[in-house]
């Protein structure tokens, strides 16, 4: 039976017609076909030499005798940070191997990670620059594209001012590129620079940072292995962070842990839960308060922790007491007994952690949601220790990094904010004249004014001029790596697409910006620039756990694609400020050197502790991945280069690289010395606060930690953040080196005492603080009461579109207000919806979320045949009861209609009990259809993704978080009919 090899080799293959034949060794014709160039006609290829159209040939095995090189990169699809190991031969990526050495993914990938090799053969990629000419996409050259775009931008700047150009960046770029994009905004003269974090975790960043200092995941996926109780509220890790699930499931197994999932959907994560609680979308705060109610009633709270390390507990108690089990069940649907059971496990079976993602953030109450989660952790002392914490799972591969480097409308890089001080700091780092920067803005006031959130770019274009608080409406969009279909209210964004004067999309794919722009009726003034994927670029990215990882390019940019940084260099040159902007950066063949940019970041990022993460240290980590411990992520102390470091130097990594701070594996962990990554909460909110008492008097309350401090701290209590003045008081100023002192005095001038740990470019203040066992940012309390937020204590507010109209009067959304240059009329919209009885016509709650196969707007992943095959149709999950009452069969086409703009979408029904009765759910990754029309013809030929479908956001509606401008795609109303 066994066929022997010898016998087999001798056989001729007479009948070998095999459909799966791979495509190696193709001739020129096949080559062109596979490049998708034939589709556009050879004519368009014109006289361009083939060499400029680099096509990565697919296909292992390597040619005989060809060397195979191993290159490491980082997966571009989510923030888990999986290492990708590529086998490259003759410049062609021929195979992917498991990355066993990475302590994060240990060889594993999800569907997306296991298919990334396809991205650089990229059959459906945008291959060369294109321009919309009379409604047709036409090939142009890079020079022409940059020239025309630049001229138009300068023209708009002349006419409407700098603020009329909107710079939309990406969480998929490296730290270096997203930092540079933010810098572009500054040098161009606008704060209208934003990226995906706006629609992802902007509410987390704001809410969490306002609680305890930094708005990032406090612990890590690896550390979850220490947890006894894991509570998921607003996270479907199984689909959104599959490799993270490896650590979580092992934690559940090894610790016989509680795996508790709160979710409106019975998700793939819930399938592994030890306890699953279904609740109504948009009631996260009542759920969390309902849990806290039981904790307080039974005295399960951590009283010592509350006293020593938190502020505002009494205010909180008042709010929690309103959420007795009856009210909680009435609003959320979760029965009291189940709530009590979960509360007990959370509060008593420690360590416990709360895991969340966009389920909490994408609401008009997103900031309050995440604050409630933080408060639950504070109340039970589940923060700052192994196995505890706010395990906030970020979405894109570098969304944490892009946020930190300030590609954002509210701050300069590293959360310095938008103040004169911040501008001066960065002007010093950039070695650019501050006054020149001022001159770039329409006026100095705008310099310190937050920009328009990208969720509302089209409102910036469309609203009457007097409602947009800048010189003129938005006239031009530069979009580098952001989807349009992940933003809500697509019918209105369509109008915005029509009204724009200039649309530039720099992306590996044309994206829905292209197809919808044509749909909107645009004929001219749109450009598509092919940008390389991160597998063709070099640089660092930050994983969800704040670890920085370095990626080398696996292959050179394919076709005519360019590195993000090269594109920015070219446009900066065209716009006339490249010399100033690239002052300290080496540029090779138009490509800025990523290492130089990271060094510039190191020099300026004291506030967030990116200062210690030099390219050399990070590269050493990548080279020695196997040395780091699986659970603690720490390398043994005796190793050269990386000894004692935590993997990827999770920020804050204090001091200059030479200080060799190991990074902070767990934030606010006061049980380990600062030089081992310990610290208290950041003393960000002052030293004390004056509280008004009911009798009209005031009292001062201490905001610094109360008797707790990391081991080895020479200050054995809470302390404020360090500045030169504090050092002097402590007598530690004599520890400063002369060179450091000189820098401090140069920065501070006559106010040298105010030069702080975050503005001292010498790093001396940080070094001295560390020397004495102190965290540079102080040792403060976390705030349960964040007095500067719209709701200092989180308050439940019904979604803008809610089916429970009877609850709106008791739990209304916040009043209309002007935020981020635009009016937020959520209150009026909510009131109108109730008055008009929208909930009667649109009785089904619609939520949206992720599929494991796709990412973000999905154009890239839907263009990958290995992934696209797995999800070929846009669908809506409908409960069997809702389906049968509407005569809808599983797999049949249905029309979903939305509450605004007569929005409609034709999708397939997936009849399932994953969703409860009265709730429907759609994935948000689809695009390329609109209102039942297939827009395939609107893509440049050969660049249309394999799978197209209606966007969920065609149906989603108004609703913006007042603190961040976050949209509300997680809860709206819809109606479903059989098609």
């Amino acid at each position, binding site marked *: 039976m066994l066929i022997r090899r010898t016998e087999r080799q001798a056989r001729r293959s007479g009948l*070998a017609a095999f459909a799966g034949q791979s495509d190696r060794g193709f001739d020129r014709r096949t080559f062109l076909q596979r490049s998708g160039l034939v589709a556009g006609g050879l004519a368009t290829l014109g006289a361009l030499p083939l060499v400029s159209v680099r096509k990565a040939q697919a296909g292992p095995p390597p040619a005989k005798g060809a060397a195979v090189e191993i290159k490491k990169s980082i997966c571009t699809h989510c923030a888990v940070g999986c290492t990708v190991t590529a086998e490259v031969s003759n410049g062609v990526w021929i195979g992917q191997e*498991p990355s066993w050495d990475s302590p994060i993914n240990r060889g594993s990938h*999800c569907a997306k990670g296991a298919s990334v090799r396809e991205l650089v053969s990229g059959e459906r990629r945008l291959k060369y620059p294109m321009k919309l000419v009379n409604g047709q996409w036409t090939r142009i050259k890079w020079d022409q594209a940059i020239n025309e775009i630049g001229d138009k931008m300068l023209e708009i700047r002349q006419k409407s001012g700098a603020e009329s150009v909107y710079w939309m960046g990406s969480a998929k770029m490296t730290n270096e590129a997203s930092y540079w994009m933010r810098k572009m905004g500054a040098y161009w003269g606008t704060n209208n620079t934003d990226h995906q974090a706006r629609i992802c975790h902007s509410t987390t960043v704001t809410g969490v940072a306002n609680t305890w200092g930094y708005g990032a995941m406090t612990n890590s996926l690896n550390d979850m292995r220490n947890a006894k109780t894991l509570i998921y509220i607003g996270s479907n890790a199984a689909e959104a962070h599959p490799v993270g*699930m490896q650590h979580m499931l092992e934690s559940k197994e090894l610790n016989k842990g509680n795996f508790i999932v709160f979710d409106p959907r019975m998700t*793939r994560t819930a399938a592994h839960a030890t306890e699953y609680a279904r609740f109504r979308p948009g009631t996260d705060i009542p759920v969390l308060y309902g849990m806290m109610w039981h904790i307080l009633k039974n005295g399960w709270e951590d009283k010592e922790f509350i006293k020593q390390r938190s502020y505002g507990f009494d205010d909180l108690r008042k709010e929690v007491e309103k959420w007795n089990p009856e009210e909680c069940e009435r609003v959320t649907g979760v029965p009291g007994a189940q709530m009590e059971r979960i509360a007990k496990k959370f509060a008593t079976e420690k360590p416990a952690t709360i895991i969340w993602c966009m389920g909490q953030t994408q609401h008009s109450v997103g900031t309050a949601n995440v604050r409630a989660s933080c408060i639950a952790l504070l109340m039970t002392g589940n923060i700052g220790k192994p196995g505890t914490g706010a395990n906030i799972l970020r979405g894109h591969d570098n969304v944490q990094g892009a946020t930190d480097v300030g590609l954002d409308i509210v701050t300069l890089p590293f959360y310095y904010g938008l103040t004169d001080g911040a501008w001066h700091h960065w002007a010093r780092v950039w070695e650019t004249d501050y006054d020149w920067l001022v001159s770039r803005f329409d006026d100095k006031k705008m310099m310190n004014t937050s920009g328009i959130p990208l969720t509302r770019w089209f409102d910036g274009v469309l609203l009457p001029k007097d409602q947009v608080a800048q010189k003129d409406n938005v006239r031009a969009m530069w979009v580098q790596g952001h989807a349009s279909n992940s933003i809500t209210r697509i019918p209105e964004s369509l109008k915005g697409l029509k009204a724009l004067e200039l649309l530039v999309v720099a992306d590996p794919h044309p994206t829905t910006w292209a197809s919808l722009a044509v749909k909107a009726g645009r004929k001219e003034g749109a450009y598509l620039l092919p940008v390389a994927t991160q597998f063709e670029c070099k640089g660092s990215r930050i994983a969800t756990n704040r670890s920085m990882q370095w990626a080398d390019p696996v292959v050179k940019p394919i076709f005519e694609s360019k590195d993000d940084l090269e594109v920015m260099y070219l446009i900066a040159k065209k716009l006339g400020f490249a010399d100033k902007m690239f002052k300290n950066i080496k540029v090779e063949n138009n490509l800025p050197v990523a290492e130089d940019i990271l060094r510039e970041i190191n020099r300026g990022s004291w506030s967030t502790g990116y200062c210690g993460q030099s390219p050399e240290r990070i590269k050493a980590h990548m080279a020695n991945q196997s040395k780091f411990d699986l659970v603690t992520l720490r390398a043994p102390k005796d190793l050269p280069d990386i000894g004692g470091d935590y993997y990827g130097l999770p920020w804050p990594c204090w001091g200059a690289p030479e200080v060799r701070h190991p990074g902070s594996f767990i934030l606010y962990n006061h049980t380990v010395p600062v030089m081992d990554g310990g610290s208290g909460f950041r003393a960000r909110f002052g030293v004390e606060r004056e509280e008004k008492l009911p009798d009209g008097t005031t009292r001062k309350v201490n905001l610094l930690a109360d008797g707790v401090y990391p081991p080895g701290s020479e200050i054995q209590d809470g302390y404020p953040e360090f500045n030169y003045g504090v050092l002097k008081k402590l007598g530690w100023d004599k520890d400063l080196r002369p060179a450091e002192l000189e820098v401090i005095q140069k920065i501070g001038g006559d106010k040298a005492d105010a030069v702080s740990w975050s503005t001292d470019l010498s790093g001396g203040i940080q070094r001295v603080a560390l020397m004495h066992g102190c965290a540079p940012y102080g040792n403060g309390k976390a705030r349960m009461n964040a007095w500067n937020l719209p709701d200092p204590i989180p308050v439940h507010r019904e979604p803008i579109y809610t089916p429970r109209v009877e609850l709106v009067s008791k739990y209304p959304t916040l009043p209309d207000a002007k935020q981020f240059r635009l009016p937020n009329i959520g209150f009026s919209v909510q009131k109108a919806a109730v008055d008009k009885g929208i909930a009667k016509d649109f009785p089904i709650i619609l939520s949206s979320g992720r599929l494991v196969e796709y990412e973000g707007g999905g154009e890239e992943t839907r263009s990958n045949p290995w992934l696209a095959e797995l999800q070929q149709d846009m669908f809506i999950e409908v409960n069997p009861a809702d389906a049968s009452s509407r005569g809808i069969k599983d797999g049949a086409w249905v029309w979903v209609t939305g509450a605004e703009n007569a929005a409609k979408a034709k999708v397939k029904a997936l009849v399932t009990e994953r969703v409860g009765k009265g709730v429907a759910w759609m994935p948000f990754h689809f695009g390329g259809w609109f209102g039942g029309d297939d827009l395939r013809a609107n893509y440049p030929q050969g660049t249309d993704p394999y799978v197209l479908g209606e966007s969920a956001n065609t149906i989603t509606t108004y609703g913006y978080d007042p603190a961040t401008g976050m949209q509300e795609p997680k809860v709206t109303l819809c109606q479903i009919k059989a098609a």
Partner: protein
Amino acid sequence: MARMKFLCDADRCIECNACVTACKNENEVPWGINRRRVVTINDGKPGEKSVSMACMHCTDAPCQAVCPVNCFYTTADGVVLHSKDLCIGCGYCFYACPFGAPQYPKVGNFGSRGKMDKCTYCAGGPEADGSAEEYAKYGANRLAEGKLPLCAEMCSTKSLLAGDGEIIAQIYKERVVKRGYGSGAWGWKTAYRETIAS
């Protein structure tokens, strides 16, 4: 010699489809051919379980038994492979296979359904190990390089195990003992006529 097997720990499987795309990637399997797939039982209901399934490389393989032209062979590692040169595309192996493993490039039967394609346990086919011909017809031959199937190597939660049957059974047993539950080694009774006590 080791007897190679697959084991999907359904208590770990999260239907992430990494195994599916890893297979596509490693073997450049064309659209429409699904050597591996993930099936979710009791979807959205209590007791939901997802299981990744491909050719289990059965002991006394039914496909091999029913093939009219005897195109299958079992390697010394217990991997069930076939020769596409010999296959006549009759479809019988699919009827006999308990796991729905055989795939055909054409849906109809006119003339032929095309050469059957299935999971090779990343062990290629009858051609010379690692040759271009072998890759074109069967995909990668990782086993010859001392590596295991990529689907299992890349599994996001270490749910899908591949390797010597005794070793992976031992791993699974230890897991079940440690965590206290296990829904069984899916397909083992059918494929290997053995179960792992849980």
